[in-house]
């Protein structure tokens, strides 16, 4: 075979890429042709040199490889965790959503029970304000009759004050206040060592408090919840919403408000049972001026 043809295939022969027949042909030619054999040797030597240069390890290759391997392993572990955790988290989230939706649908009271009511938030603010500056929240009433007359005049409602049987509550005083735009009777009672605020609102005022309205529509006419540090208890009567708020236990607060509501309905009037307006000299929160006003 001609040298020119052989040289076409020389590199393929060097790479062992030729078929058996062609390999034999080139091999035979190289055995007989010194020039081609020399060229082949040169190519092989050059190729070997280049290969050795390119395959030579560089300084720090081992460290680089180990570092890359560690990073890749960490990356792989992170990805594996993500592959497991993401679907699990999505599934858990979806299951929770379904459970909450079902729970809200079938047992709405459970979810609404701890919801901070709008009315509770308002009266809590009012009560907290009172605790900060008690004098500003007290009207100068000389007797039960005065307080009844005062509320009757300003709220266009009948009030009656009588004794609460077995109640430990003592009325300290009262005043009118504005709860979210609703004229409200605010009475301060002393229950044990705590001051409790009791608020009277007209029944139709519940329109101003969507949360209360919704809960009263689906639950019993009482609502119990906690607002900040205070217990809140609300009871709906035929014409009124009576709610108490204070830092006492929920049972005592409930007894107080229930007593206040007991006779309501039949006579269509608000009943304020505690009959005595007692001075609170022992209470450090009451100022001397307030005590004087009350007495």
């Amino acid at each position: 075979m001609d040298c020119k043809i052989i040289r076409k295939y020389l590199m393929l022969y060097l790479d062992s890429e030729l078929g058996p027949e062609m390999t034999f042909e080139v091999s035979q030619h190289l055995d007989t042709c010194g020039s081609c054999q020399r060229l082949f040797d040169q190519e092989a030597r050059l190729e070997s040199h280049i290969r050795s240069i390119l395959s030579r390890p560089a300084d720090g290759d081992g460290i680089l490889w180990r570092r890359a391997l560690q990073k890749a392993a960490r990356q792989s572990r992170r990805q594996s965790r993500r592959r497991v955790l993401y679907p699990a988290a999505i599934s858990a989230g979806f299951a929770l959503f379904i459970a909450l939706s079902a729970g809200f649908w079938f047992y709405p009271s459970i979810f609404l029970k701890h919801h901070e009511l709008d009315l509770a938030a308002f009266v809590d603010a009012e009560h907290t304000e009172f605790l900060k500056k008690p004098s500003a929240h007290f009207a100068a009433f000389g007797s039960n009759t005065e307080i009844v007359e005062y509320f009757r005049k300003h709220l266009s409602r009948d009030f009656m004050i009588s004794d609460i049987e077995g109640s430990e509550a003592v009325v300290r005083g009262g005043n009118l206040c504005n709860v979210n735009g609703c004229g409200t009777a605010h009475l301060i009672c002393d229950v044990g060592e705590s001051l409790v605020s009791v608020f009277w609102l007209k029944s139709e005022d519940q329109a101003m408090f969507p949360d209360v309205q919704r809960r009263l529509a689906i639950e019993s006419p009482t609502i119990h919840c906690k607002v900040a540090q205070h217990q809140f208890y609300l009871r709906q009567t035929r014409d009124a919403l009576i709610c108490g708020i204070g830092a006492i236990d929920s049972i005592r607060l409930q007894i107080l408000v229930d007593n206040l509501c007991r006779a309501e309905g039949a006579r269509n009037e608000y009943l304020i049972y505690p009959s005595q307006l007692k001075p609170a000299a022992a209470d450090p929160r009451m100022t001397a001026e307030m005590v004087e006003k009350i007495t």
Partner: protein
Amino acid sequence: MIRERGNSHGELQSYLEANRQSLTNYCRHSLYEKQHLEDAIQSVIAIVIEKFALFERGSDFRTWIFKICTNVVYNINKKAARERRHFISLSEQVEDAVAELQQEFAYDELLRHPDKVLAHVGDEMQEALLAIPGNERAVFLLKTIAGLTCREIAETLEIPIGTAMANLFRARAKLRVHLSEYAKQYGFLDNNVREDSKNGLQDH
């Protein structure tokens, strides 16, 4: 260090260890930016760890890993907006391309004294490699460093085997020409040698 389902991690580690140097060198000589070398190796290993469960036993690990490696290098080079990948499909027969290239390039002088030149070659080799088009360089490095056959290279790069052979020849020729020019420029070789060599070829 490596935990993987399916195929054992010991097997994977031994595979990686066997190809460690060739993989590192392949990445090193393929990347335009040296500082991306560790990122490239890390990406390759991460992909290999992730996909190793899908690797079919009995198939060629080298072909598989260098395919991943080529894609990773290509992506990194692409990010640097330095390289475009378009494999040239040659319609002609490989022999024709080889003949054409033999006329085009002359590097006979380098053949006579490879030691003289290559003893002085340092970064010039890398420069010469980076001067070669990416598809040709990939074929050349897969052949020289990874030791793949043309069929395996064609499979790795998903190109026809004829194209792989032609690219390999082009890359070799260009590299030799580049190295010859470098040698002549720095006086490592005598220009007269080339003429002697041409005459020798014409005699046959």
